[in-house]
């Protein structure tokens, strides 16, 4: 059986959920599929209060934002959700295939599709990085905050971006010792307030340092770190071994765009947005007219911007389907104004520069 649906959302993070809400409010029937155990994407494991502006739920803890959005979605009768369902393919006749519960294949034929699949973590390639005990930081967060599993006793965090800093703090909250946060760049990449709060709790942040080797028999036992010079070269004599049973890798995210490739959307490599990203217009419409994008899949940013992009895309998709939206222009402009204001600071500048290459 092929499910004929007006609108299919792939990915139930903040971007996908908000896009679905916008369309539902405009009277469109929406099907959302997500491969997680729970709907919510990154939000469900975020125990810290979110940044951003009051309007995008700043000051509220991530998982609570997820709960708020979920409750709203399920209050609509014309909303249908498939959990533990992974979109696996995109066919020329416009059919999307998905695998539910790892056993049942579903087929959807949507009139319009949102790809809001988020991002994947970049790996770290150094000797012995395949030993048990080397984790992506996101995986560590899932183990701790979703499953209540302590991933190790003494951690070493690689990467001082927001994710590395936040998860170092959450490890400490869970009772894991954190030896250090190691960062190859000369400056901390994440927000300085996050850096300060882990530093005053006693975790050193070692900028201009990198990890060169991991050792251990059956699992991680120690790691070697070294200072790097301005050309990223290790400074001889500064090597140091640190005992650790948990190496957390937080060296960046890259947009999850396989489905966009499969569909044949035009893509460009933009380092400032985290990798290959889709070319889109101001409605968040990709170069194939019935495909829209939003959130980290369209460029690595934040939940606040994923929410706004989701709103813009959802609105655009409802409009694409011919739904009556009296105040379309007003809403569209409002979300863009908020997004521009969000991106107007020094942090958002990188994003704005990156968008020049893909936003028409």
């Amino acid at each position: 059986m092929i499910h004929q649906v007006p609108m299919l959302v792939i990915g139930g993070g903040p971007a996908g959920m908000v896009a679905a809400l916008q369309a539902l409010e405009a009277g469109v029937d929406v099907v959302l599929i997500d491969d997680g155990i729970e709907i919510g994407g990154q939000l469900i494991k975020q125990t810290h209060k979110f940044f951003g502006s009051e309007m995008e739920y700043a000051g509220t803890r991530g998982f609570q934002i997820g709960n708020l959005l979920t409750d709203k979605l399920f209050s609509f009768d014309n909303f249908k959700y498939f959990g533990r369902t992974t979109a696996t393919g995109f066919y020329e006749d416009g059919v999307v295939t998905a695998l539910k519960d790892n056993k049942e294949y579903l087929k959807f034929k949507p009139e319009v599709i949102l790809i809001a699949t988020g991002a994947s973590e970049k790996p770290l390639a150094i000797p012995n990085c395949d030993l048990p005990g080397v984790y992506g930081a996101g995986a560590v967060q899932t183990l701790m905050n979703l499953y209540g599993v302590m991933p190790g006793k003494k951690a070493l965090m690689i990467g001082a971006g927001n994710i590395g800093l936040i998860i170092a703090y959450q490890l400490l909250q869970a009772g894991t010792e954190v030896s250090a946060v190691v960062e190859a760049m000369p400056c901390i990449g994440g927000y300085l307030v996050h850096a300060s709060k882990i530093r005053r709790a006693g975790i050193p942040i070692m900028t201009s340092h990198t990890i060169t080797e991991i050792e251990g028999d059956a699992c991680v036992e120690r790691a070697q770190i070294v200072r790097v010079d301005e050309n990223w070269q290790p400074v001889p004599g500064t090597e140091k071994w640190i005992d650790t049973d948990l190496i957390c890798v937080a060296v960046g995210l890259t947009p999850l765009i396989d489905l966009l490739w499969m569909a044949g959307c035009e893509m460009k490599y933009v380092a400032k947005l985290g990798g290959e990203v889709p070319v889109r217009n101001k409605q968040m419409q990709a170069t194939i007219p019935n495909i829209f994008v939003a959130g980290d899949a369209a460029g690595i940013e934040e939940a606040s911007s994923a929410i706004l992009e989701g709103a813009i895309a959802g609105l655009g998709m409802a409009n694409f389907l011919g739904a009556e939206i009296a105040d379309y222009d007003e809403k569209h402009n409002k979300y863009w104004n908020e997004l521009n204001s969000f991106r107007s600071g020094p942090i958002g500048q990188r994003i704005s520069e990156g968008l020049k290459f893909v936003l028409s």
Partner: protein
Amino acid sequence: MLKQTGIPTKEDIEKILPSKQRREKGAYVVIECFEEIPCDPCTAACQYGAILQMENVNDLPEADYEKCNGCGICIGLCPGVAIFVVDETYSEEKALIKLPYEFTPLPNKGDVVPGLDRAGEEVCKAEVIRVQKHPSKTNIIWITVQKELAHEVRFIRIPEI
């Protein structure tokens, strides 16, 4: 320095403190948020209007110390865990510091615990005089320290039992 280590410098701190006269009048807020980030919940957190509205969500937060009474409500609402309250008039020798604390176990009133500076180094013993549970789960711990450490101590360590 802050950008390399996460530790604000003396100059960073001096820039945000109120005038000497204001400090002698009683409790005031200390907002240790030194970078333009897209964040603004603090501006809505203070009912007394002592944290100024931002024109742009990326602006640095700014306090109006004449309006601030040191109540500490904003402490629990800052996602950066960057807001403190200091009262240098607490007693002859001691200053009061209210700090955000997101760990368990919580200390108890009367406990004497290591007081840590912004680098996480122990600089004194601090007395816990109140544990204020906040609905946001960012609890607020009131400690007293020697006056000269009012702007040094920013965290406490609860020794393992």
